[in-house]
């Protein structure tokens, strides 16, 4: 892909290919897997995603690019929700209870977070709410690399879809709520462990659909 076009042409071409794949796949797909499929670097994928995101900001676009952690998906523009809803004839989502919303907000702002961390913030056992959120697909869980007896919970694409936002950074007060001054030390310690965490992405073509 180097011999012919300029860099910007390359970027546009990669963006086009990514959009085709996202459209076909429907479900979220990792940057890593896209990079492997297209035989380009993850940075190129990131750059192309920026192009797509920008293009779908146009008023006439009916789509948005949703990005979460290291994955992305193409989805309908939130502004068209009621129309699409009537067209796909899907049942309206049931509302969430107070406790479930609290648990969801802890996960949305502090992900990845363990149940004991959620319990500590809420001062109460959160397992009912967690189960409800998992069953509804609003959150995801993975085994905690620091303690395999524990799960860590994170937002799912479905949660962003239902909230109608393209990334967690669009959550209200994201910057202030996502940082916990007290736990800053703990968080940076666990961050160091993250590289081991990439186990799910080791096979770029893996059909792993745990999300």
């Amino acid at each position: 892909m180097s011999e012919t076009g300029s860099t910007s042409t390359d970027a546009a071409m990669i963006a086009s290919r990514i959009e085709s794949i996202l459209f076909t796949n429907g479900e979220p797909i990792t940057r890593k897997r896209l990079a492997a499929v297209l035989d380009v670097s993850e940075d190129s994928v990131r750059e192309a995603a920026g192009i797509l995101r920008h293009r779908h900001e146009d008023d006439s676009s009916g789509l948005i690019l949703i990005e979460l952690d290291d994955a992305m998906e193409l989805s309908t523009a939130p502004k068209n929700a009621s129309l699409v809803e009537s067209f796909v004839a899907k049942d309206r989502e049931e509302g969430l209870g107070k406790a479930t919303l609290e648990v969801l907000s802890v996960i949305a702002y502090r992900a990845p977070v363990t149940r004991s961390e959620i319990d500590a913030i809420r001062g109460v056992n959160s397992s009912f709410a967690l189960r409800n959120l998992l069953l509804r697909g609003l959150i995801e869980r993975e085994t905690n690399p620091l303690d395999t007896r524990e799960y860590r919970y994170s937002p799912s694409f479905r949660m962003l879809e239902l909230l109608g936002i393209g990334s967690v950074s669009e959550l209200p007060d994201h910057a202030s709520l996502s940082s916990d001054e007290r736990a800053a030390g703990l968080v940076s310690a666990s961050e160091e462990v993250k590289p081991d965490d990439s186990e799910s992405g080791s096979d770029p073509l893996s059909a792993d659909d745990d999300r």
Partner: protein
Amino acid sequence: MPCHIRITLFEGPLELLLALIEDRKLDVTRVSLAEVADQYLAFLSAERDRIDLANLASFLVIASRLILIKSKMLLPVLEFTDEEEEAIEDLEIRLAEYRKFREASLGLARLFERGSRSFPREKFLGAPETFSPPKGLTVDVLARQFENLLGAIPSKERIIEETIEEVMSLEERIATLQDSLRVRAQMTFRELAAAGNRMEVIVSFLAVLELVKQRFVVADQGDAFGDIRISVAERESAVFF
């Protein structure tokens, strides 16, 4: 007394505590915590049976911290151990933290209520279903997979057992705390009186009167000019639980 607050409406102790404080339009401070402590404990003792077993332990933990704060308010000279001081500070921080997330959850609720959601596209929409089995799929693979899944289901009995154990150990800890407070309160008053500082003795005496009024301690004077013996009310645990 804002008696319209019912504990059954609250899933957790922080939620209840925050509601009690906000009901009096107070900020989260040690003073405000002391002010609502009685109410909290009264709710807990009245509605204990209605609290979900899984959450009872959390209510008890907070109760023990409120007992500490309250006794310090009534008897300022009471010394806390480092551990107790830490537990109280932790409660204040956690209340502030919980309040932030309660606000955040209202923000999320507003986003949900907007109803402007996004719809994904189904995987391979329009593509035909073609039989494409994975390699190595056998009945044994399926059997093992299903067995593993069943094995990962936690048994309900065990969870309940563990919770009951936790609650029991907490109740023991609270009893121990009350014992320890009783001893420390007695010690403090005797030492104060012995120190001979008249002003301090008077203040302490007022504190004792307050404690008596709150039925938190009992004062006992053997004869008209004898020693005043104070101790944390024996009935205390009955009041709480």
